């Protein structure tokens, strides 16, 4: 790696010097700035070798493995797949100085083959890298000259790099979705999809031993989603009006000095760790709600959807207000002036001109807040509990999808039981829901945008 960097620097200076030299006494007659020639040379010296190294790093082991496997004696190849796998693992361990779980003559033999093959392949690759570096260097150096369009070539490479980077982001997302999908499919092969989506009972404990009773394991996800939506709804009831009105106050009514003080304070709310909100909900809001409910003759528990929703609402106020404030500020002053010049009051101007103009952005802010609320876990664990009640009563404890995913995966569990797999299924459904939400919001925003600009 370090060697490659050195080569790169050398190539850059060399390319630059050669380009300058080729122009003779008139550097300005060069097609491209000398720096581009240097970069071009550096790229050609390093990039092909680097790609080879990367490929070897990614697929070298695989090839090696296949090669050894083919050369194994017939009796071992005839073994069941897991045992061949185990054999290979032991061979690797022996070859590279690990500890193997058993030893035998065949194993020793395979390990030796493994080690020598690995050594030769390393030599071959290093040789190839050196050859490629020199070859690339000479090739590119030969092309550099007065009229050579180094700038265009370099820009083509930069373009390629940009494409590769965005491809990485997309491929990672695809990979995550695919793994969610495959694990979910495994879950759905054990549990009926309809039972999962529409079942009303959630109790994921499956029987570990056949004689255990009462642990049938039922995976009806409805209570979880109901809990998620209940809490999100309560949170938005709090955050949407408060956030919006404070945004309007900040951007339209507050004096610049007030705004300079109030806005950062609101944004501090966003920096409070969610755990802190959680115990605030558990220790302050929860008991308060219980007492208040008892005072009017209702029964309530300390852990309730209401306290989680309220606190979550407070948590997302700054999201709504800060984003909406930016959006409202971006509404051109000319529109406000136009409205004032028509004899509109400030309130009329805000309601009829500023707000509609900012609406697409405000929708975006609200949807972002919703997805934040749906994904929030910590507050719910602490404030709303973990019992999967199917209820619309905000005074009862409920649980949410994300909370269940956490509890499902943090136990000591075999990784392919229905219980852990159900976490993937929940994740998948959650993903589909937020994806749908985003698509809808984009549609809405685009519709307004078409109407408004």
């Amino acid at each position: 790696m370090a060697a490659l960097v050195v080569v790169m620097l050398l190539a850059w200076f060399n390319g630059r010097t050669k380009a300058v030299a080729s122009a003779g006494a008139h550097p300005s007659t060069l097609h491209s700035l000398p720096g581009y020639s240097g970069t071009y040379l550096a790229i050609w010296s390093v990039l092909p070798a680097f790609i080879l190294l990367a490929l070897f790093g990614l697929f070298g082991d695989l090839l090696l493995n296949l090669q050894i496997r083919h050369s194994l004696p017939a009796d071992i190849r005839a073994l069941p797949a897991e045992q061949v796998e185990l054999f290979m693992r032991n061979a690797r361990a022996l070859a590279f100085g690990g500890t193997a779980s058993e030893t035998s003559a065949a194993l020793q033999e395979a390990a030796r083959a493994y080690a020598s093959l690995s050594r030769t392949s390393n030599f071959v690759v290093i040789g190839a890298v050196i050859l490629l570096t020199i070859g690339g260097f000479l090739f590119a150096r030969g092309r550099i000259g007065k009229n050579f369009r180094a700038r265009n070539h370099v820009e083509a490479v930069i373009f390629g790099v940009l494409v590769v980077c965005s491809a990485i982001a997309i491929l990672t997302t695809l990979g995550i979705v695919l793994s969610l999908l495959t694990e979910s499919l495994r879950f759905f092969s054990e549990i009926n999809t309809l039972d999962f989506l529409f079942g009303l009972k959630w109790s994921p404990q499956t029987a570990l031993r056949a004689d255990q009773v009462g642990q049938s394991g039922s995976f009806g996800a409805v209570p979880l989603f109901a809990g998620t939506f209940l809490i999100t709804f309560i949170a938005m009831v709090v955050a949407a009006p408060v956030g919006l009105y404070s945004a309007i106050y900040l951007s339209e009514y507050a004096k610049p000095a007030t705004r300079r003080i109030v806005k950062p304070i609101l944004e501090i709310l966003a920096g409070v760790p969610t755990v802190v909100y959680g115990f605030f909900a558990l220790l302050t809001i929860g008991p308060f709600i219980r007492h208040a409910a008892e005072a009017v003759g209702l029964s309530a528990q300390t852990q309730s959807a209401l306290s989680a929703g309220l606190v979550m609402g407070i948590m997302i106020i700054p999201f709504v207000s800060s984003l909406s404030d930016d959006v409202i500020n971006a509404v051109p002053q000319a529109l406000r002036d136009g409205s004032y010049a028509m004899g509109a009051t400030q309130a009329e101007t805000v309601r009829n001109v500023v707000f509609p103009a900012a609406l697409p952005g405000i929708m975006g802010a609200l949807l972002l807040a919703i997805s934040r609320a749906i994904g929030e876990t910590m507050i719910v664990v602490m404030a709303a509990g973990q019992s999967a009640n199917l209820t619309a009563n905000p005074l009862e404890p409920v649980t949410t999808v994300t909370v269940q995913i956490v509890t499902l995966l943090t136990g000591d569990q075999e990784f392919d039981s229905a219980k852990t797999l159900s976490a993937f299924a929940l994740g998948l459904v959650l993903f589909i829901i937020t994806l749908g939400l985003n698509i809808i919001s984009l549609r809405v925003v685009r519709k307004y945008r078409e109407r408004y600009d």
Partner: protein
Amino acid sequence: MDTSVSPATQTTDTQTAQQAPKVQARKVNVFYGNKQALFDVNLDIPDRSVTSFIGPSGCGKSTFLRCINRMNDTIDICRVEGDILLDGKDVYARDVDPVILRASVGMVFQKPNPFPKSIFDNVAYGPRIHGLASNPEELSEIVETSLRRAGLWTEVADRLDEPGTGLSGGQQQRLVIARAIAVRPEVILMDEPCSALDPIATARIEELIDDLRNNYCIIMVTHSMAQAARVSQHTAFFHLGKLVEAGPTEQIFTNPNDKRTQDYITGRFG
């Protein structure tokens, strides 16, 4: 109020010359913070004619224009001293609500600023907030009349529910003029209404201004000498926050009293 001036009656130019001025400025001083932008401006502006303000950038033309409909009130640091009389009544008097004043003194800005609403809603905006129409038919009628007066009706009659922001620059500026007309103002202020438009759109707006002159008192800021000469009957020349000279356009352009006016209109400074 001067009852002899009602917007419905048509008058000829010769008559307007003798009428009482529509807008009068008396010793107007304007400050932005500590910086004085206008110094002792005294000016009479007649009704039913076009008055243009000319002068180099930053000389206070827009500032003075914004005094007339009290748009300067929306700027925190801006302070206005002196009197602006509309039909003999001080617009800065304590009992005058700037919101109501602005309904009778409309304003058109340099850059067309239609609201992000449909063409219809743009024009209906003022009538709606001032309750000028008692039913939807009346509102449609106001919208149609205003658009006709602004010379835009034939171009947009079949697409009133499309966004006003989708029109061309020149159409947008006429839409904004229609929007201003819809609240039946007596005075229309225009701050460089053509400077963001191409020559053809400019010509259309100039024609329109010439039409509107029969019914309104129009006050226009312009950077184009030629435009001032073409469309205005009266011209006021500002320089460094002072009103240097005002009078009939012809006289200002052919026979100015002040050397600075002479220099400016002959392009010796800009």
